[in-house]
């Protein structure tokens, strides 16, 4: 019961950020998709084989909402991480939580259990909706490849990586100019690695490795640091 009470509290505090990310992506993503559906006539007027950007390969209705997905996932990760771990006196609950009769891991997991669905609902499911919409043949000439659906989810999980990086930095007791930012730095490193892959499997492996490294480090830090 105590654990569920913690979850309800976290959910209450984080809900505005979920809704903000959801509304941002829904609004601007829909506009982008709608605009792409109007551009159907202009998709392939000529062919050019520019080696850097072959014009043969430009028909991607989801390429408009994708940067918005990236922005909203990264933004959500930063906001949730800061809200839950960086400014503990934001709502003056740290002392209250840490001195109740629940163990530290329960507090940590209650926060993370709330954060994970935030990414799934605010970014992951919305991305699936965009993918489903862009598959309508009366609106778009060719459906996007299924790979684009997975890539969207990979981008969403990068938001979760940024969340973990923010958590790690928030929990660090080091000064900002030493290793405090190493969590955020490592999350940027994972993003660079993922964006340098063309095989989906390698990108997923990099994300799983990143999550594993962060979780071990965060659990150790959270259990051992002084509050």
């Amino acid at each position, binding site marked *: 019961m105590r654990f569920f009470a913690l979850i309800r509290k976290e959910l209450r505090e984080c809900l505005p950020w979920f809704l903000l990310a959801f509304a941002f992506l829904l609004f601007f993503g829909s506009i982008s998709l709608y605009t792409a559906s109007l551009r159907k*006539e202009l*998709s*392939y*007027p*000529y*062919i*050019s*084989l520019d*080696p850097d950007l*072959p014009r*043969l*390969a*430009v*028909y*991607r209705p*989801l*390429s408009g909402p*994708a*940067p918005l997905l*990236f922005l909203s996932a990264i933004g959500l990760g930063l906001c949730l991480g800061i809200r839950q771990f960086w400014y503990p006196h934001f709502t003056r609950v740290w002392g209250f939580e840490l001195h109740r009769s629940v163990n530290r891991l329960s507090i940590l997991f209650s926060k993370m259990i709330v954060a994970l669905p935030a990414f799934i609902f605010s970014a992951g499911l919305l991305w699936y909706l965009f993918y489903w919409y862009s598959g309508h*043949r*009366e609106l*778009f*000439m*060719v*459906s996007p*490849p299924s*790979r*684009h659906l997975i*890539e*969207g989810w*990979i*981008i969403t999980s990068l938001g979760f990586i940024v969340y973990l990086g923010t958590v790690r930095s928030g929990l660090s007791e*080091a000064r900002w100019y*030493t*290793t405090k930012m*190493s969590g955020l*730095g*490592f999350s940027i*490193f994972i993003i*660079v*690695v*993922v*964006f*340098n*892959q*063309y*095989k*989906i499997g*390698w*990108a997923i492996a990099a994300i799983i490795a990143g999550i594993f*490294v962060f979780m*071990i*480090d965060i*659990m*150790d*830090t959270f259990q*051992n640091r002084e509050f």
Partner: protein
Amino acid sequence: MKPIRSKRYIARAFRVTVTVLLFWFIVTFVQVLTFQTAYLFNREDTAEGKDIFGGSQWMPHRSSKEVLPDGTIHLVYTAEYSRVRQGYNELQIYDVNGNLIWQGPDKDKPFEYLQWAEFPSNSFDDHQLIYMQYIGTELSRVLDIPVNSNLRTEEIWRYNVNGQVFKGCSREGDVLGYIGAGGFAGSRSEAVGLGDFQLFELCESSVLNPVFIWQTDNRIYEINFETRQVQILFESPANKIDDIWLNNWRQKPSEKPAGNIEYRPMIFCRTEDNVYYLIMRNPEQTVTIEAFKNENPNSYSLDATATSKGVFLLCYKRSFFPPVGISQKQMEQYWKEYRQKPGPHYLEFYSADSSGDIELVSRFDWVRPAIDESLWQARIDFYEKYRKMTSSVSPIVYDLLWRFFEDGMLRLSERDFGIIRELVSITRENQADGSFINLFLGSLMVVFAFWHGWSRRTGWGRFIFWLVFVGLFNLAGLLTYLALNHTVVIKCPVCGRRRGLQIENCIRCKAKLPVPEKRELDLILST
């Protein structure tokens, strides 16, 4: 080991890895930035622009060699650029004996030289196909070939990278069918894969309804998406196709090159066993050239052309060439020797018959003078000076990796995915090659870490680990060490020597940390 302790060890290891990675990244970034800035501001010091061949007058090595259809070889010099005379268009043409035959603007030259097959300039290759699939904020790209009518897209043929077939969709979104090695197919199961993609070239000037030359490992296709036809132009089941060159392939009559020589459309290709094939039209004909099969591929280059009068080959050879399969260092040594000696070169012009036998028509020999090594060396020294300066803080790990795992590193650098290639390149560019200053600075850092860590040490194993770590990673290692180990030092109240606060007992006298004395109203200590 208890799970909680093992988790702590894993967490520490990850923390060290993440921190060293970040500091390594920062140090490398500063190194690259310093090198580029220094190079930018000092490049006037180099020997660039000077004549590294020593400025001799008769310079066949500086001319382009052109051939007339009868086999006469001319040496064509392009004048230096001049604003007044609108240089680059000014030509001087010599015969092989060094006699000036003609000079003037390019457009007025009285000779019509043979035009050779060229590497597809408008092509899209396998590297670009991989690059296209990179995951990015705008997602990976797909290869869609449109078929247009009156500037309106009627069909789109999408290439399936894994299945190696094209899937067609109509404007209304209906699936039209598939295009594979066997041509058009109504269903996916009937379509046969084209093979591992190498390159395609847009071979017709009309860009609205493209026709492609599509090269795979073992075949060359011509694919017309508008008519949905696939023609296998060439097949080499046993050996992979290395390169292709095109001449006049599917050119429109209106775009026929000016001149009297009538060229036949031709694809010239080489397979990995060093056999050349000329695939020609008007009439359809394939000629196989096996004369160069036993030649070292580094020793020559071959051009080809086909006219209504015959098939011609131009072979450019040098007598000094690197053997196949030598290491990087041997290759560097080879080039050094190559530069120091005068290099005999020759050009051979052949005609080929329909059976692939070749006959020598004409030949021109010349000697490239030895390169003035001091000027060449000045260029290398300039680069090396800055490279050594920035690599003085490089990790010694780079040297160890390249010394003991050179083959593996080279294999990694040939991989397609970008980041590993970049990492390998960084280790190569920034390796210190065992330079004295790198070792000296590395030693200084180890000494500093020793001095810093002595009073803060919590155990011998950990202390030695950090010293070795700093030694291996140089500046990045020292910064990591300081970031993770710096603590306040106090004077031990028992032995009087400096001690860190990371462990409860003094590392020297084993005395415990002093407890603050009780004060009158100290609620915490008195309860």
